[in-house]
């Protein structure tokens, strides 16, 4: 398992290759990349600044992967999340899950993202033409996470 919170950009191809090649029993890798959009809630976005809770963030991400492991069999998982000030089209987050077959990898990857969105202590602040604003949490993100609770 690998969890990284970093200012620097990441090379998704290299990260996925490292995960994929770590075990010859791996037959599938599912991954998600989130990137900065140039528009949100009807306003153009100039920059996006990500704040986090050092110490808790890393623990929360490890706990999310551990929770995914109790539900699906997979070989390994990776989360990289950036912090600091980003521009539109910059990568924000990479989640990758490697396992024997695609089904468990797809499900675990989506589960990890849904929990990351609602439980990992990151906060986004946008710069728009009218000034800075904190991004509000979305009810749809809560709903996405709750869906997994009902599937227990």
């Amino acid at each position, binding site marked *: 398992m690998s969890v990284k919170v970093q200012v620097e950009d990441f090379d998704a191809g290299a990260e996925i290759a490292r995960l994929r090649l770590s075990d010859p029993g791996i037959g599938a890798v599912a991954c998600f990349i989130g990137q900065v959009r140039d528009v949100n809630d009807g306003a153009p976005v100039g920059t996006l600044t990500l*704040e986090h809770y050092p110490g*808790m963030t890393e623990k929360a991400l490890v706990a999310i992967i551990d929770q995914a492991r109790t539900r699906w069999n997979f070989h390994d998982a990776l989360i990289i999340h950036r912090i600091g000030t980003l521009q539109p089209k910059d990568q*924000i*987050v990479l989640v990758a899950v490697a396992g024997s077959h695609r089904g468990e990898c797809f499900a675990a990857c989506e589960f990890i993202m849904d929990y990351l*969105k*609602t439980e990992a202590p*990151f906060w986004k602040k946008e710069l728009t033409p009218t000034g800075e604003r904190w991004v*509000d949490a979305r009810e749809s993100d809560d709903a996405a996470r709750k869906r997994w609770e009902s599937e227990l």
Partner: protein
Amino acid sequence: MSRPVRILYFARLRETLGASAEEAALPDEVMDIAGLMWWLAARGGVWQEEFDGCRQIRAAVNQELVQNAAFVNAGDEVAFFPPVTGG
């Protein structure tokens, strides 16, 4: 006897309260997160606006998300923040 705790504030709270961290001595009657929020709201002004229960605030004790009924013990690291928006 009062209990020493460290309180951290993040994101919007850090900005509106003008504080990222403080050492506080909690009186005996402040038992849990809900009680601590009332205690902070009693400071008035922006503290009241943030902690009077109208705004959604999440809490962590020793770096784990908790509900408002969670106890706060001497030496704990408590954090308050708005709902998270990463990813």
